[in-house]
């Protein structure tokens, strides 16, 4: 029996909702829904569903989904009990849903009971795309450019920075402004995914960029995620002719280093580059993004990769109990950030 696919409803499920007394027996819809769930592996989202605020449980959730993805198991995501949800979680849900559907694996679930949180998912166009057939494509675009906008690609697309910058600066300053640090951040991350997310070859993994405009507080939040091998796993697998080959031994020869969280701090601050390669990092790669933060061109930079969670802006580098295979980055652009007259 085919179940009622709640995700296929491309409308607000709470509209015109009339409270009815709870019936003694299951309703027809509940029976259909229960039967539908039997065919799926049910995975509950964390109550506090946020990569930023609750990375440990969110990583467990992603890892459970990944297991199903690899074994081609149908998944039913239980969102009913979610009490807190942010755009980092919405981006995870969107990217995971696209990955499942692109492999033609069934992906279903329910709405959060909290109406505001359900609306947040609806606004992201998550439900709209759940009802559609999705093929494995190079690029996906979801949402509206000046609201919640999500873009995925396997390649570097430097042109993307132009409309993103125009929309973000209109939200923040009410007019177009040039934000060179924003473009550098986007480029370094896209290039990082394209070059390093897969050990085997370039351009194998998608990156996902979600942009959320907050007009009230005049700020724009960016979320970038890939499900590659992550920063430390990528470093571990450098070929012998790569300048980073044997980096750990070179590093421990010269510096006292502890766990990955300590190493990550050295990496972002350029110390690791200097120690391992003997050269100044000159803003290359991830340290280049830290430099953008230090120049006040962006704010609130946070990075999660493998077993490290870094609140770079607050200089807090934590080791996680759970391992995230991939790289998650979030940052903000607001009124206080360095900007210049529009270039055109």
């Amino acid at each position, binding site marked *: 029996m085919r179940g009622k696919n709640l995700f296929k409803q491309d409308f607000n499920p709470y509209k015109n909702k009339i409270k009815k007394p709870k019936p003694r027996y299951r309703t027809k819809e509940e029976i259909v829904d229960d039967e539908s769930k039997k065919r799926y592996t049910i995975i509950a989202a964390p109550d506090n569903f946020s990569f930023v605020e609750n990375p440990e449980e969110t990583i467990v959730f992603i890892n459970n989904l990944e297991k199903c993805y690899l074994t081609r198991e149908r998944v039913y995501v239980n969102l009913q009990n979610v009490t807190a949800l942010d755009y980092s979680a919405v981006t995870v849900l969107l990217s995971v849903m696209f990955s499942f559907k692109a492999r033609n694996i069934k992906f279903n679930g329910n709405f959060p009971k909290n109406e505001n949180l359900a609306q947040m998912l609806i606004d992201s166009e998550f439900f709209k795309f759940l009802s559609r057939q999705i093929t494995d494509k190079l690029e996906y675009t979801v949402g509206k450019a000046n609201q919640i906008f999500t873009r995925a690609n396997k390649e570097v697309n430097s042109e993307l920075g132009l409309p993103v910058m125009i929309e973000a600066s209109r939200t923040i300053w009410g007019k177009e402004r040039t934000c*060179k640090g924003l473009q550098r951040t986007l480029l370094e991350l896209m290039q990082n995914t394209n070059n390093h997310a897969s050990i085997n070859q370039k351009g194998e993994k998608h990156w996902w960029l979600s942009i959320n405009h907050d007009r009230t507080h005049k700020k724009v939040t960016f979320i970038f995620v890939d499900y590659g091998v992550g920063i430390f796993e990528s470093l571990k697998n450098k070929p012998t002719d790569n300048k980073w080959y044997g980096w750990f031994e070179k590093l421990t020869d010269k510096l006292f280093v502890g766990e990955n969280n300590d190493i990550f701090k050295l990496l972002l601050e350029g110390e690791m580059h200097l120690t391992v390669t003997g050269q100044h990092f000159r803003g290359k790669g991830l340290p280049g993004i830290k430099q953008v933060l230090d120049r006040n061109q962006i704010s609130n930079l946070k990075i999660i990769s493998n077993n490290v969670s870094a609140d770079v802006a607050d200089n807090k580098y934590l080791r996680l109990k759970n391992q995230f295979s991939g790289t998650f980055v979030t940052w903000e652009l607001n009124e206080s950030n360095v900007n210049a007259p529009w270039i055109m």
Partner: protein
Amino acid sequence: MDNVTVLVKDFSITPGSRELDEGKRAHTGEDFRDNFLEPAFKNILETNSKLTVNLDGTIGYGTSWLEEVFGGLARRYGNDIVLSKLNFISEEEPYLIDDILDYIKNA
């Protein structure tokens, strides 16, 4: 022969990543170096002229683009020759010039 200026914005206002295989809309350093910078560089190579690269007028740079362009040129022609023949203008992001000089020296 007069000194020559190359404006990056004539190539693209969205210069992107390093190599051609990284994307159809990546506006790569490899493309800029091979099709804009190097032809102009060759023209002044045997003369007393200098080539000025004006970096202003774009929405920003990734480091790999800069390294591929200028480090890449130095790998072909030698660090000293490239350093002696190139000048830079970067009023919008003055710190880029130090980075570029370092890419050339360490190419």
